[in-house]
């Protein structure tokens, strides 16, 4: 009785709030986005453990730019993922996220069998704005072209420019908007072994490269008005057809800009045991050094209750090989993404052996 | 005086049949002349009312003969008996004599008109003499028991029947009222030369009639 009432209350709350109706779940499954959500649904997750015939499989090798900046529809999943740490003229810190996901509905790489999903977020120290878009492939509503000029878009949201090193980033929701200019101040960085990023002991992997050296300036639009900002941004490009192992329930991922100019990418794929870790140390000149399972340690220090979940918002991150031992703290602990597939994503500040700022992403907390 | 108005010969009547058969009348003989009055007495259940109903043609006898004014009642069918009842016989019951839907005047005139002998002055005089002239527009349910019984008597006499049959006509009335109603009835019967057969269980009332017949175990005993 009580449980029932609670459930109906929750249902009402959800309907009243931003989150679209739970019925979207069916579609989420359909779009094949679940694996990205970690273990949101056992059903969806189980499907990911099995290799699905017909999709292209990643293999180590050299990237083919600029073609690889564009879409790889033969693979099941792909994303263009930008996180930015920004500062206003008054010194206020902001975080911005712009993400375009591509997901194949069926194998074969046909344009009209692609589903596109955009996420945009703007985080201030005390507020967190989110918007989400979906679109069908092949209609022109969403897509990415990497050949002549670079352009990734869904609806009016766009990441576009002369090439991937110089792009304008635009997105908006009902209560926020941003327009940023991104200019790369360093080279593209291949993650893992020359862009082949292993995700589990049993060999799940993705093609993965980053542009962690964007300098940013632009304008954020908040309910109270426009704010001019500058800062730095990080692009992640990743595609795969089979990303997670069957017992992996989600991940915790960080991208850290150290004041020294060096960068660190690291993640833990959580499973029933100690998890699978991976990291890349990026020197200020862009030279990457990959670290395999066990080299990186991430330890939750403090949890925060958000969206009826307990999410770690303070972490200890250790990479002994580089004498890194830092504590990262969420700038806004409520940076929850109440999207179809919900997750936590927000800016962090770094203290300890190194100083700086970065982004934290945590999925599969359900 | 000629033929008797009523002649009952060896009349029998049995209720029910088989093991439950109950013989009420076992051969009754009676005779009544015009202008004469006869009291029929007997215990409760002795068959007085049954005999009266047979004479009135309201029911039919199992055996024997009833002759009224020269007509063999026992030989008639239902419609014939109804016609005889309409023209020759008048019945006054203990109660519930009147037609509820007609007023007093129409009740008094009803039987005379059915018999084709409507006589307005005669009916009016009867009403006056029975003390009903103030109640002519009333309906039966608006009258007392004594008044209703007087209306019944007036109605019977208004039709000038040859034979008046009365079944405990005062049985439902208090003694004074009953006495007065009986006085009126006897006076009018005598005046019109009508024969009267009255069933009563009261020896006192019986004594006021010309003759008396006692019914006991289905036979006239005295």
């Amino acid at each position, binding site marked *: 009785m009580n449980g029932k009432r609670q459930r109906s209350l929750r249902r009402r709350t959800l309907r009243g709030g931003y989150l679209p*109706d739970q*019925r*979207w779940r*069916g*579609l989420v*499954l*359909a*779009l094949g986005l679940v694996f990205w959500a970690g273990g949101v649904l056992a059903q969806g997750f189980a499907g990911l453990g099995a290799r699905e015939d017909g999709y292209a499989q990643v293999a180590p090798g050299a990237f083919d730019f600029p073609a690889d900046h564009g879409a790889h529809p033969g693979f099941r999943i792909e994303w263009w993922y930008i996180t930015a740490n920004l500062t206003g003229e008054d010194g206020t810190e902001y975080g911005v996220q712009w993400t375009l996901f591509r997901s194949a*509905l*069926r194998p074969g790489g046909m344009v*009209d*069998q692609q*589903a*596109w999903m955009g996420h945009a977020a703007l985080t201030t120290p005390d507020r967190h704005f989110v*918007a989400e878009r*979906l679109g*069908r492939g092949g*209609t*022109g*509503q969403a897509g990415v072209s990497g050949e002549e000029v670079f352009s990734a878009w869904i*609806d*009016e949201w766009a990441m576009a420019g002369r090439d991937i090193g110089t792009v304008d980033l635009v997105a*908006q*929701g*009902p*209560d*926020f*908007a941003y327009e940023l200019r991104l200019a790369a101040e360093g080279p593209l960085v291949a993650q893992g072994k020359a862009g082949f990023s292993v995700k589990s002991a049993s060999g799940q992997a993705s093609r993965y490269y980053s542009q962690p050296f964007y300098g940013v300036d632009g304008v954020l639009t908040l309910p109270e008005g426009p704010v001019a900002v500058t800062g730095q941004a990080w692009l992640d490009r990743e595609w795969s057809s089979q990303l997670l192992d069957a017992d992996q329930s989600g991940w915790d991922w960080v991208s850290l800009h150290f004041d020294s100019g060096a960068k660190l990418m690291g993640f833990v794929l959580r499973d029933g045991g100690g998890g699978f870790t991976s990291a890349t140390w990026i020197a200020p000149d862009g030279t990457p050094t990959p670290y395999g399972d066990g080299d990186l340690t991430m330890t939750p220090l403090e949890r925060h209750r958000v969206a009826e979940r307990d999410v770690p918002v303070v972490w200890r991150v250790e990479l002994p090989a580089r004498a890194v031992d830092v504590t990262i703290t969420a700038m806004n602990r409520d940076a929850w993404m109440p999207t179809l597939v919900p997750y936590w994503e927000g800016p962090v500040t770094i203290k300890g052996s190194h100083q700086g700022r970065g982004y934290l992403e945590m999925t599969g907390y359900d | 005086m000629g033929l008797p108005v009523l002649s009952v010969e060896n009349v029998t009547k049995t209720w029910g049949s088989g093991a439950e058969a109950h013989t009420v009348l076992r051969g009754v003989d009676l005779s009544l002349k015009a202008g004469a009055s006869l009291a029929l007495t007997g215990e409760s259940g002795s068959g007085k*009312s049954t005999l009266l*109903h047979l004479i*009135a043609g*309201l*029911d039919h006898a199992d055996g024997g003969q009833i002759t009224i004014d020269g007509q063999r009642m026992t030989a008639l069918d*239902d*419609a014939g008996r*109804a*016609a*005889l*009842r*309409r*023209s020759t*016989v008048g*019945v006054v*019951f*203990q*109660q*519930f*004599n*009147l*037609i509820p*839907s*007609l007023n007093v005047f*129409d009740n008094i*005139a*009803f039987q005379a*008109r*059915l018999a084709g002998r409507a006589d307005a002055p005669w009916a009016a005089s009867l009403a006056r003499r029975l003390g009903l002239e103030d109640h002519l527009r009333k*309906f039966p*349910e608006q009258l007392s028991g004594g008044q209703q019984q007087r209306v019944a008597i007036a109605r019977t006499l208004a039709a000038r029947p040859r034979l008046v049959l009365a*079944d405990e006509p005062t049985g439902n009335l208090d003694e004074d009222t009953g006495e007065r109603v009986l006085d009126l009835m006897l006076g009018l019967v005598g005046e019109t030369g009508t024969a009267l057969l009255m069933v009563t269980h009261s020896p006192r009332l019986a004594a006021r009639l010309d003759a008396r017949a006692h019914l006991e175990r289905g036979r006239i005993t005295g």
Partner: protein
Amino acid sequence: MRRAALHALLSHWRRRPFQLLTLVLGLATATALWSGVQAINAEARDSYDRAASALGPAPRATITTPDRTPMDMAQFIALRRAGWLVSPVVEGTIATQGGPLRIIGIDPFTLPLADLPSGAGDDALTASFIGDTGPLIVAPETAARLAGAVLPPLIARQGVAPSLAYADLPVAQALLEMTGRISRLVVLDRQPLRRPALSDVAPGLVLNAPEDGTDMAGLTDSFHLNLTAFGLLSFAVGLFIVRGTIGLAFEQRRPVFRTLRALGLPARSLLALLLGELLVLALLSGALGIALGYLVASALIPDVAATLRGLYGASVEGTLSIRPIWWASGLAIAVLGTGLAAISSLWQVARLPLLAPAQPRAWARASESALAWQGGAAVFLALLSAATLTFGSGLIAAFVMLGALLIAAALALPLVLYAVMALGARLARAPLVQWFWADTRQQLPGLSLALMALLLALAANIGVGTMVSSFRLTFTGWLDQRLASELYVTAETDAQARALQTFLTGKTEAVLPIWHIDATLAGQPGEIYGVADHLTYRDNWPLIARTPDLWDRLARGEGVLVNEQLARRAGLWPGANVALRDWNPPVLGVYSDYGNPLGQVLVGIDSLVARYPEVERLQFGLRVAPGQIDGLRDALIADFGLPADRIVDQTSIKAFSLGVFERTFTVSRALNVLTLSVAGFAILTSLLTLAAMRLPQLAPVWALGVARRRLARLELLRALVLAGLTFVCAVPVGLLLAWVLLAVINVEAFGWRLPLFLFPRDWLWLGLLSLLAAGAAALFPAVRIARMPPARLLQVFAHER
């Protein structure tokens, strides 16, 4: 004490099982007809709601072309890329082997799935829903109907509107032959911060305010109000029975009440016991009634569905689902009705003096004051009815007027009958005749409720019968005028249509294009037809208002004709102008257009083609000499190669139209017959009940020399006279009813006015029928009197009644 008292009270029903049966059946029938009608209405309303909320429970704003013709997918993309959150919808109806199917193509990527019915938005939307090979999501009953049709795979889900299928956009576009095109864009909630003006992004498109999707409910309101009125009438007729029976049972138990009170049972307890008894009876009868109502509704709903489809284009599946609310309301109405019927009897019990006379005054002569009250009420209601007719407007007012009229007539009936009886008694010469009238009059209070019920049923029957027959007469005449062409053909493509015109040259007297386009007329969906300038129209078209040189001016494009329902709804009579796309032509005339829910405008064919170049030019009416019809049809099939199902002859269309018409009134007629049966039953039970109380009235007359057989004949005659008089009273009431239906309610409900025709032969039959019913009802009591042993009659004089 209470236990003993209850036993004493209930023993009454054991002794009079027939009375109990009357009460239960009366209440059950009343509840059955009422709840049956309610069930039909609820089913239909649910269908409309589901259809109306096919895309979201709350209506959303839309973006369309000005005349709502389809637009290109590119315009959807342009709007999305400019920051307009819109979702494309393609919608249309296709013909399938299982009947028409409304297709709604949606884009699950942009449409909030909460907008879909709960069943459809759930697990049905898997990856397999998306793409060219996706399935259709339909209601289970629709799936059953479509079994075997050549369609994409069907997924059945509860909650989907009947005769509607959801499909992924490309699937729907393919089914509707609208590849790359969409019907409209739905504007979603929570638009982003910055959007350019619509005119900058998509000039030529317009933003429409949210439209209440309850068009269908509004359109069909009249139909359901009609049904409700019938249900109410039946319920009222049933209540007359219940009132009669309860009144009798209470009267007969007066001595018992008195004894119980004298023995010390408090009045409050007695009332409580009686209330409890009534409640149990009401619940039992109500449950029985609801079960019966379900049967009635199940039997009628296929016809209702057909009617709604034929008349309004509304989709209702021909099956009934059981709703708890319906059970509850059925029981409630049964209890309420019983309470209503018992209130005066209970009031009397509450005020029962302890030493009231023992003799029950059951059915005593009605008091003058009660009659006066009734007469006053009748006059008041008649005045109310007249006032509503004069000052009121709208469907509700029309029904108030009708209700007041009928109740006034029912209340006035006993007065009229009293007057007739009094007159009869005064004019009577023979004593038995005089007694007959007097006695009949005395019986009136006991029979008047049943007679009032009969009056209502007969009047309704005459009224509805007259309306239907008048309508049929008008409709068939109208069909002859309207369907003047001998053959109607529909080409499959524009090219084929052109070829067809060439092929037909010289083979017919005329080839009349029948081209039309859907449009919004006076704010509601409608259609624009083009007509050729031809004698067929000049000679036959059923005009009800016209201006000089109408056909010439129409051909020259100087004006348009509108149909009656549009004219009445929007006041578009000659002298007014119609707002069309970039055109505001004057109304030249108005024509009758029975059976069409839509507003319609008729323009010259040249104007249609010039102003609506996109119009489909596929349909033609062919004028052919009668002897050549079959030959031409064969030639079209064999020589030209037109499929046979694209050729329809006049006779078939007429037969089809009349079929739709007949089904439309099946429900009215069925309810009519049921109501009449209930009234007949009321007469039967009233007479049977009275028969048991007739002995004290009959015995003295019998004792005074009227044979039983003759009395029995008089009893039979009495019932016939009462029924006959009631019928005579019902005729004018019924005609008034018919007039209101034709001249007021039809105009409000359908938008057309019909002439009133009289059908005396029908009345004759109905009169005979009511005499037969009354005769049959009186026969049994009469025979019983004729065969009654004298001893029974004699008991009257010996026992206290």
